[in-house]
């Protein structure tokens, strides 16, 4: 093979490099599509809509970041669309874990591989789950729930089988040694928490952020929290329950781009996201619905995907 650098080859290579650099320098030159693989109105959708206007502020050029809800197939269609989009930085998307792992496992046809997505950042710190019942429930403590489990399966209201809450409920109940039967099909966390309050099921396992406002308004009673150090007075946490693994059941909301995203564009987007996560107004707004935003990097997001994959990989059989 001739390895001699000819003038022609040099000019061609330099030209290609220059156009790539120019593409990075020009980025973004048009609107960015922000795919949300969930229906409008849920916590996930709300978070993206809070972040999107701030993100526009921190991009090097003035463009719009346009949220685009693609909830079909339990979110599989949206993530598949993100995965197959051109890796030019103009399509990014929000992905929740662990629900998306189950989607990937069950909907092979959706054709995406979470390990290959170019991760940009995490939208907030990972969230812990907790176990709650309606305020009028006869179950007053976790011991009551365990006792019920001894007589029959405890009914939990939850999302569809490809939702993050479904995974948290199945794994959480398993770790707690509670026999569980899931009432599925609720649309979003508000819907299945209300289902438990109404008495459709005995209890619910949901993110702390969804439950806390309900607890403050005395609509629900929290029986157990999966936090390593509980934030609810008098409620047993993961340590007190003797199951530290419970605190590994986390809800992650990550932002990714199609595989093969050029490094320059990835850096621009990650930097803009890091600034957005530190933007005081955005942080305040997110805090109002209990999400803790904090600056984080693309590497940290990628590490979260690996950790989540390792933990839920152990439960693959139960979940699918």
């Amino acid at each position, binding site marked *: 093979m001739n390895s001699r650098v000819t003038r022609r080859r040099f000019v061609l290579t330099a030209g290609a490099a220059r156009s790539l650099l120019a593409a990075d320098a020009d980025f973004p030159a048009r609107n960015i599509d922000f795919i949300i693989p969930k229906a409008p*109105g849920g916590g996930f959708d*709300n978070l993206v*809509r809070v972040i999107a206007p701030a993100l526009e502020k921190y991009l090097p050029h003035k463009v719009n970041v346009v949220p685009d809800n693609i909830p*079909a197939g339990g979110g599989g269609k949206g993530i*598949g669309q993100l995965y197959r989009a051109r890796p030019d930085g103009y399509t990014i998307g929000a992905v929740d874990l662990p629900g998306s792992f189950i989607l990937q496992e069950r909907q092979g046809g959706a054709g995406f591989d979470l390990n290959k997505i170019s991760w940009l950042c995490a939208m907030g710190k990972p969230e812990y789950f907790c176990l709650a019942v309606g305020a009028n429930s006869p179950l007053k403590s976790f011991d009551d729930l365990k006792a019920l489990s001894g007589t029959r399966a405890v009914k939990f209201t939850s999302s569809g089988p490809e939702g993050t809450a479904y995974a948290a409920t199945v794994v959480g109940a398993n770790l707690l040694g509670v026999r569980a039967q899931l*009432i599925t099909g609720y649309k979003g966390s508000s819907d299945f928490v*209300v289902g438990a309050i109404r008495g459709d099921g005995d209890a619910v396992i949901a993110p702390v952020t969804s439950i806390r406002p*309900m607890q403050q308004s005395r609509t629900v009673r929290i029986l157990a929290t999966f936090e390593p150090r509980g934030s609810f007075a008098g409620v047993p946490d993961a340590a007190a329950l003797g199951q530290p693994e419970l605190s590994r059941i986390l809800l992650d909301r990550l932002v990714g781009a199609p595989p093969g995203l050029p490094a320059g564009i990835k850096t621009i987007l990650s930097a803009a996201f890091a600034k957005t996560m530190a933007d005081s107004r955005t942080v305040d707004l997110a805090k109002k619905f209990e999400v803790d935003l904090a600056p984080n990097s693309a590497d940290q997001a990628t590490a979260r995907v690996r950790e989540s994959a390792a933990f839920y990989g152990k439960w693959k059989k139960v979940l699918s």
Partner: protein
Amino acid sequence: MLHLWLGGVEGLLQARELLFLGLGMLIGLFFGAIPGLGGATALALLTPLTYGLDSFTALALAGGVMGAVPMGGSISAILLNAPGSAPSAATCLDGHPLAQQGKAGLALGAAASANAIGGIIGTVSVLAILPIAKDLVLLFGPPELFLLAVLGLIVVSTASRGKMLRGLIAGVFGLMISFIGYNDVTGVLRFTAGIAYLWDGVHLVPALIGLFAVAEMINLSVKGGAIAKDAKTVGITSVTSGLLETFRHWRTVLRGSLIGTVVGAIPGVGGTVASFLSYSLTVQASADPESFGKGNIQGVIAPEAAINAKDCSCLIPTLAFGVPGGVEMAVFMGLLVLHGMQPGPLMLIDHQVEIYGLIWALTGSCVLASFLGLLVARPLSLLTLIDSQILVPVVTAVALVGSYAVDRNIGNVLVTAIFGILGYVMIRFDYPRLTMVVALVLGAAAERNFHQTTMMSDGNLSVYFHRKVCLVLLAGMAALLIAPFFRGFRKFRGLPK
């Protein structure tokens, strides 16, 4: 309580808030009138623009949009048989036949006044029930929602008198279509034929645009002439008569408003059910049911009153629990969050003045939009005199573009075209589109709630007999099924109807 109501009014009666309310009203009218756009699209586009506004001003703008969308939808439904949004499809059924008879002014006048009165009744009802809102929302679980869906299907089936068999065929076809896509309960994709577009089922708004607007345009191009071709002049002077008709049929207005209020307060049911249920129950209650679908003014008044009453009451599940009643409310929730208001039980405590301000904004916009609707009814009625050679291409293009705009998906355009042909075939062979639409709307919800009820009760059907609301709904179903026999008996005995 009164000081909170007044606080809401006071907040709204500022120059800036009134300006944004008016702006929202105009945007709502426009987006409501264009098939496929609707309130959800308007709010989605406006939400980022409200980032710099204070929360009360943003709520005035959103209230203005949501209050005016139904009036915009009525205009296109009546004049062009093109529902601006899904709930307005019920208005097409009698509103457009009136336009064809040269009575567009009458229909628009009745729609505007029913809109305004329905909105006001809805507001009064919501103000009365807001303190007990949470209890009301919690009354409706999966068993009740399943029975409500079945009740809706029974109401519509029994309303299609004289063509019951064809109604049932259309209904069953609608149910089959509604089962396409992702099953929320089992997580399984069904009947999608490997087409990714169908993962989310057949989208309702593009289907309705096809079934009504495109079907009507095909019909018009086959027949030729104008929409009101049989009328020498359009009855534009009858706008005032339409207004009076609404007062004459005050029972229909009241019934529609109450149905709208109750259905709106039930999470996840939505305005389409409210408008079609109100329409069908009005047909049921009428002494002359055969006149519906041919231009009965009550067929305009009933759905219009329900749609606007629903607009206020569907705030209840949205604000009390963060469970939206439809797509428009879901997008509206995003706007609330952007302004630091998290829908849920605490919102009813922490943001009471804002909530009342929003309710007044909705009502104000609804009344103002109706007034504006009355003003423009006369010139707009002239649309029905335009020849089909000009009207058909324009309306078809607007319908297809509107269908695409729902979620910027080219698949929607194909769905609209297919349903357009289907709708024309149904017109041609006199199959009722009403039963098909209601089955399309209710099918998936009925299935999901049935599955959930079965899981709740371990398959024990007696759950339906142990819950008070279920018993009321079952009694309603029994009454609806017995009523035709009772009527037949009275007819046989020669007794008055």
